[in-house]
């Protein structure tokens, strides 16, 4: 109960959420996750995939490359001819599907993570340059960005992949570089917004250095949108990698990747449908988790979004 004297000073109630400190912030984040359970679900799903990628050798019951022709084409454990030795069945060469899915998460996450890392860092750099320098440099950069964004993505990705051949690094580089324009756009947009708000002149006039303006003002505003978009782009890259794998343009066929598994599965679709079904489910699971996570991040990191209590 506030003191009468306090009330007389000011009628305003002090803001309770002004508490700072890392611990308080983490607790706040936890509370936000709990309130918006879809974010929690998304994060958990994502963590499951990460854990299977990191701990694959421990979690997978079999060596994903090991062929066992006697156990080939075995259906999942719950059907007639299946049993628990191969819970999700085996493929045409007798390789255990569950293990291959667990190992496949490594390819997907590696491609997604490093691809986004490249695209984001380079995109950030180029976007800052374009937004800050403006003029001709900006025009050239934006011209290139618009050019790349105008192209039919799938056609060109397939084209490049076909030319450069198979390989994990190649795939990472392809996705990393073709996604740069998106991050350039976001960064540049933010820089322009701040420039146009007259804020920069004001900051310069009180003696801030350009570097300080970038680090203290522009970058913090960018973290939110960049993280959110990065999450969605990572999910997209995982999809596209699977697509390339489906055409045999991703990692070599021996390496277990969800896309490769789908390609194999397609050949036997009508007789052994499980070979294709489970890798697809893995992709859907990962995509779903990341999308939910991305949605939650977007809500949390956008200060303007406030929901009404019922």
């Amino acid at each position, binding site marked *: 109960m506030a003191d009468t004297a306090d009330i007389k000073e000011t009628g305003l109630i002090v803001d309770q959420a002004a508490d700072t400190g890392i611990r308080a912030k983490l607790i706040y984040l936890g509370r936000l996750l709990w309130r918006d359970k879809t974010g929690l679900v998304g994060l958990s799903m994502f963590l499951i995939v990460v854990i299977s990628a990191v701990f694959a050798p421990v979690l997978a019951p079999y060596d994903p490359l090991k062929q066992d022709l006697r156990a080939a084409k075995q259906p999942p454990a719950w059907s007639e001819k299946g049993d628990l030795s191969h819970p999700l069945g085996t493929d045409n060469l007798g390789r255990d599907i569950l293990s291959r899915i667990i190992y496949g998460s490594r390819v997907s996450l590696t491609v997604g993570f490093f691809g986004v890392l490249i695209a984001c860092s380079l995109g950030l750099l180029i976007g800052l340059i374009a937004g800050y320098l403006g003029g001709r440099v900006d025009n050239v950069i934006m*011209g290139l960005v*618009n*050019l790349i964004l*105008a*192209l*039919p*993505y*799938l*056609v*060109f990705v*397939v*084209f*490049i992949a*076909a*030319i*450069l051949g198979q390989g994990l690094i190649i795939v990472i580089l392809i996705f990393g570089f073709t996604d740069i324009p998106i991050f350039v756009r976001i960064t540049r947009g933010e820089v322009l917004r701040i420039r146009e708000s007259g804020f920069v002149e004001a900051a310069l006039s009180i003696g801030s250095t350009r570097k300080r303006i970038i680090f203290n003002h522009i970058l913090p505003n960018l973290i939110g949108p960049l993280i959110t978009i990065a999450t969605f782009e990572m*999910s997209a890259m995982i*999809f596209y990698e*699977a*697509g390339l794998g*489906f*055409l045999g*343009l991703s990692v070599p066929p021996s390496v277990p990747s969800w896309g490769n598994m*789908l390609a194999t*599965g*397609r050949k036997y*679709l*009508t007789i052994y*449908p499980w070979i*294709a*079904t489970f890798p*697809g489910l893995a*992709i*859907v699971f990962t*995509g*779903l988790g990341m*999308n*939910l996570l991305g949605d939650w991040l977007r809500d949390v990191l956008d200060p303007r979004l406030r929901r009404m209590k019922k």
Partner: protein
Amino acid sequence: MQRYILSRMVQSLLILLGVLFIVFFMLQLTGDPVSLMVSRNASPEQVERLREEMGFNRPLIIQFGDFIGGALVGDFGMSLRHRQPAMKLILERLPATVELATTALLIALCIGIPLGLLSGSNPGSFWDTLARGAGLVGQTIPNFWLALILIVVFSVELGWFPTFGRRTWEVFGMELPTKSVILPAFSLGLFTTGQLVRFTRSAVLEIKNEDYVRTAYSKGLKDNQIYLRHILRNASIPLISIVGVQFGYLLSGSIYIETIFSWPGIGNLLAEAIGNRDFALVQAIAFFASLVVVTLNLLTDIAYGLADPRIRYGD
């Protein structure tokens, strides 16, 4: 308005020029385009002969000039495999892809817009949950996987649709679609459906709070009227952009679906060409797909300008 159209046209031409440049130099990426196209067993003499035949030992500038010159008249060289002009092959396959993409778009529109509208106008209701689920599904399920599942369920198990191939209904010399297009179109249109639901929903939610909607209520108009005449009408303008972009995506992104369903379109041609290392054809397809997308974007922007009176009668 005219200035707007003109500047967009110039932009489009510049982009197409850029595309030509990219498409041409993609082949040169590895340094020796011929090596891409020949089989491993080819002898050095065969390789050299092919190089001369295709003109790859000329200076780059000349090759490029030739390329552009050819492009302007629609000549993209010959497909190695089919021994026919690349463009001719592409145009032959075009109708199948157009049929597929158009059907996919129609399905997406018929499901997406009404669902988005119902969802936006009744937040928290069953429709809302359904719509948000649909939006999520569209984003998270890869269309090629859905295609496989649909085949297993509807073709193999239920037998309602053919497992592959395109069948048409010949009427007065026209090729009309039959039910063979349904499964491919559904798979292809999945992402677009999700996008349309999400977009319509968020547009409705946003527009609902606009001042002019409040004015409409203050005039005592009925809810239906307000939703259709005010909210939907305003939402349909940016919807034009989304639909245009999605149509371009559908036309150019059908490679997986066409491959899975053996649908004789351009996507299938692309997959084939890659498999055969027929890169002249791949080049031609890449350019053609870009042409389609760029043209579509241009038409969409023009349509947008015409539809929005602020641009059409702008000062």
